[in-house]
């Protein structure tokens, strides 16, 4: 038994790591710059002097100043220090330039020259030619973000025209600008796209983003939300409470109704109750619960159809200092419809399973023995049959675990209940990726635990499992 358990738990680890690769890989593909999102909300004024420093500080606090992974397998054209260029937009531009021309030394020289030109530019007093200067500054701010040949040339030409029109400017800026233009021309004339096809393995060690993220994730630190800078774990905890209440109630009611229905239908197999309940449950099973939820909201929460019986959205908004019982009833009143929608779907499923497993058990010989012994029908059914028929239902626990976390996404969204599902969709809308991928990881972990628990329970009740291997 112990070896079996140990084996199962050990298998848990590679699966979890593989899923963490998936989540991390996906989070790296997301659009938008997390640093900009977290530290520079759209309404903060842009201050060029402190921006660079501030950006570095923020990137460090998010752990983004590191290489992404332990190693990289890319082409020899890319330098192994590209990650040190902190600003995501610039880094993207540079790697696109490399992907086009494949000559990093020339590209780096061009990039450095851009900085030199910029500092030369800032040394020029504004009084000299303020209009042209503003234009040039706008252009030069744009230049590090451009990688398409046509656009880069157009920007360079525009700067050239501005400089040449003003003799004073030309005197100050022309040498620096000419070197810059020259550098760009070199990138193109000395392009080595063949280098892109030379594979190269680079080792970065444990100081990387994945390691930073995953080791903190294991310890329960999920990072901060890019939206409001609150800890992700805090946000998830708040949401989790609602989801637990909602799904806990739904699962409780589902089992409460499903088990007697399933047993009764199986015991009276082929009778009217069995036939009708089977047909009805099949019907329920196919009924999409977001449709039912929409129907309920439309017909039972609007005065329009004369059946305005339930509150439409939310989970009640009484203040926290209201008496417990009035808050309780308020919440209960709001949860009737969503809990109903969640209950009926699992009800159908569990009940069908229960019926099937009970039917299987009732064909066993020990059931016949029990009847032959003269035991009452009640004892035969509940003590001999039902207990054994419960085993397959145990495996359904594996399905319940993840359901508690993410099973009610659509229902929560429809009824505006601030649970995990609502949080997920809200975070996706706000591009708050740390929240989304933390929930995804948690969902996977909980599913794995569910499978594990089901396996263990199964091994407990069925000795054949643990001695097989």
């Amino acid at each position, binding site marked *: 038994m112990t070896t079996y358990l140990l084996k199962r738990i050990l*298998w848990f680890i*590679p*699966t979890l790591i*593989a*899923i963490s690769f*998936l989540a991390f890989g*996906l*989070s790296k*593909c*997301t*659009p938008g710059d997390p640093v900009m999102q977290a530290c520079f909300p759209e309404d903060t004024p842009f201050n060029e002097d402190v921006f660079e420093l501030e950006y570095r500080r923020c990137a460090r606090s998010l752990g983004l100043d590191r290489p992404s992974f332990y190693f990289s*397998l*890319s*082409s020899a054209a890319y330098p192994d220090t590209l990650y040190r260029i902190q600003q995501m937009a610039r880094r993207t531009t540079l790697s*696109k330039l490399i*992907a*086009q021309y494949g000559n990093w030394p020339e590209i780096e020289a061009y990039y450095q020259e851009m900085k030199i030109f910029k500092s030369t530019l800032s040394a020029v007093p504004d009084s000299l030619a303020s209009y042209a200067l503003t234009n040039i500054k706008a252009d030069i701010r744009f230049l590090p973000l451009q990688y*398409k040949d046509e656009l880069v040339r157009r920007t360079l030409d525009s700067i050239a025209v501005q400089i040449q029109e003003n003799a004073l400017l030309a005197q100050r800026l022309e040498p620096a600008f000419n070197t810059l233009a020259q550098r760009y021309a070199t990138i193109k004339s000395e392009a080595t796209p063949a280098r*892109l*096809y030379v*594979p190269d393995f680079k080792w970065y060690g444990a100081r990387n983003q994945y390691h930073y993220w995953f080791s903190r994730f294991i310890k329960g630190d999920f990072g901060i939300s890019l939206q409001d800078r609150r800890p992700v774990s805090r946000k998830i905890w708040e949401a989790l409470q609602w989801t637990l209440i909602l799904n806990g109630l739904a699962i409780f009611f589902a089992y409460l109704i499903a088990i007697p229905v399933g047993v009764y239908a199986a015991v009276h197999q082929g009778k009217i109750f069995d036939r009708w309940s089977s047909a009805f449950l*099949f*019907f329920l*099973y*196919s*009924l*999409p619960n*977001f*449709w039912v939820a*929409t*129907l309920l*909201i*439309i*017909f039972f*929460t*609007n005065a*329009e*159809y004369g059946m305005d019986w339930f509150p439409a959205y939310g989970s009640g908004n009484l203040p926290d200092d209201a008496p417990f019982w009035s808050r309780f009833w308020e919440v209960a009143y709001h949860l009737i419809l969503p809990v109903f929608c969640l209950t009926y779907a699992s009800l159908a499923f569990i009940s069908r399973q229960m019926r099937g497993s009970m039917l299987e058990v009732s064909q066993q010989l020990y059931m016949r023995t029990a009847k032959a012994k003269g035991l009452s029908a009640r004892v035969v059914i509940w003590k001999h049959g039902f207990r054994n028929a419960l085993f397959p239902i145990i495996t359904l626990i594996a399905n319940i675990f*993840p359901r508690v*976390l*993410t099973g009610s*996404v*659509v229902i929560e*969204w*429809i009824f505006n209940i601030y649970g995990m599902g609502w949080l*997920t*969709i809200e975070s*996706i809308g706000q*591009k708050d*990726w740390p929240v*989304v*991928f933390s*929930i*995804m990881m948690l*969902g*996977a972990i909980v*599913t*794995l635990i569910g*499978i594990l628990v089901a396996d263990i329970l199964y091994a407990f009740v069925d000795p054949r499992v643990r001695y097989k291997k």
Partner: protein
Amino acid sequence: MREKEQHSDIEQELGKRTYWSFAWERFRKNRMALWSWRIFLMLLLVAVIGDFLANDKPLYCKIDGKRYFPVVQDYAVQAGWSKWDSKFLMTPWNEHTYQAVVWPLIPYASEGMDYKNTYTGPFHDQRVEGLRFRHWLGTDDLGRDVAAGMIAGTRTALMVGMVAMSIALVIGLFLGALAGYFGDDGLKLSRIRVVLNSLFLLLGVFWGWGSRSYALSEGNQISNFLLGLAILIGFLILANLLSNYLERFPSLGKRWVIPIDLLVMRLIEMVNAIPGLLLILAFVAAIQEESILFVMVLIGLLAWTGVARFVRAELLRIRRMEYIDAARALGFSQWKIIFRHALPNALGPVLIALSFGMAGAILLEAALSFLNIGVPEEQVTWGSLLREARNYPKAWWLTVVPGFAIFLSVTIFNYIGDGLTQALDPRLKE
């Protein structure tokens, strides 16, 4: 002579009654399943000829003595073979003066907006020219015809289901067959083949996509992606040809046992552990480009585990049968035995997985477009119609009609799956 004829008659009679004809007969006895099958065929027909059923262009028209078949011509225009007359580009289709015209059953396109009739119900007064142009199932907030939207939605739903399930089928059949047929100790590969395949897999990915990242991100994405795929496949073929040759050297040809069953089962467990809806939501939001194609591929990539489990279980049974031993004794290659002899006999249960999978895929697509994630805004689907109902509770037709369609399609696939289970279950054979 006559005896021989009789003999062949019996043979023919028996030949006709294959496994599938037995299964079909049992399936037909299940009335719900049979009707579900018929409804499915009908939905399929609607999806295929949808453009001829609901379209803002006439099927046939005659203007100034010239005859046109605009719906057919539209296909040609989209393929680049033909061009519209300028008069069709200037004036909407319903404002021409036709000498003769035949409209489709529903003279509206799913995305066409009728500003005079927004949020009109089926029984409301509609500002349309006569009964022919009535919105039989009402309109939404932009005046888009719900009936036309339903037909477009049928097409989307079935396409998502079928494409996703085809992907699931290919992956599931392949991995399930390998796992079931070879088990943990049946697959023996030479060292050189394992090494070369893993090496060339990496290199193929690198040269196929990695080195060409600029073309991939800036050029035509689909053709560049496919080119990368071709390069990868080319490399894998090369790896195997090379190892066919190199295997002759004894030191390279030494065989390793690959516990393929274990690997596939772990992979299945892993894929099942990923919260599917969450992954799709996150993925679709992350790639930003909204396209139904991604939804289909993702559902397929998650749904193959069901197929693989069924195939594996069947092949575990089949591989011990005598005819497989016979095939081995005759010296057929492993691959030929798997794909020609074993797999065709494992297809029955796969159909069950496919049909329940279709129900799941359609439901998932509807939920995604209901949440307005992953499906382009302008594409009308059942889920998107249902979503609109929330903004305007008075429009009951926006809830009832598309919701019923989702329900119907999910139900019929569940019934078909149920019927197939009964028809193909060996325990129920008389």
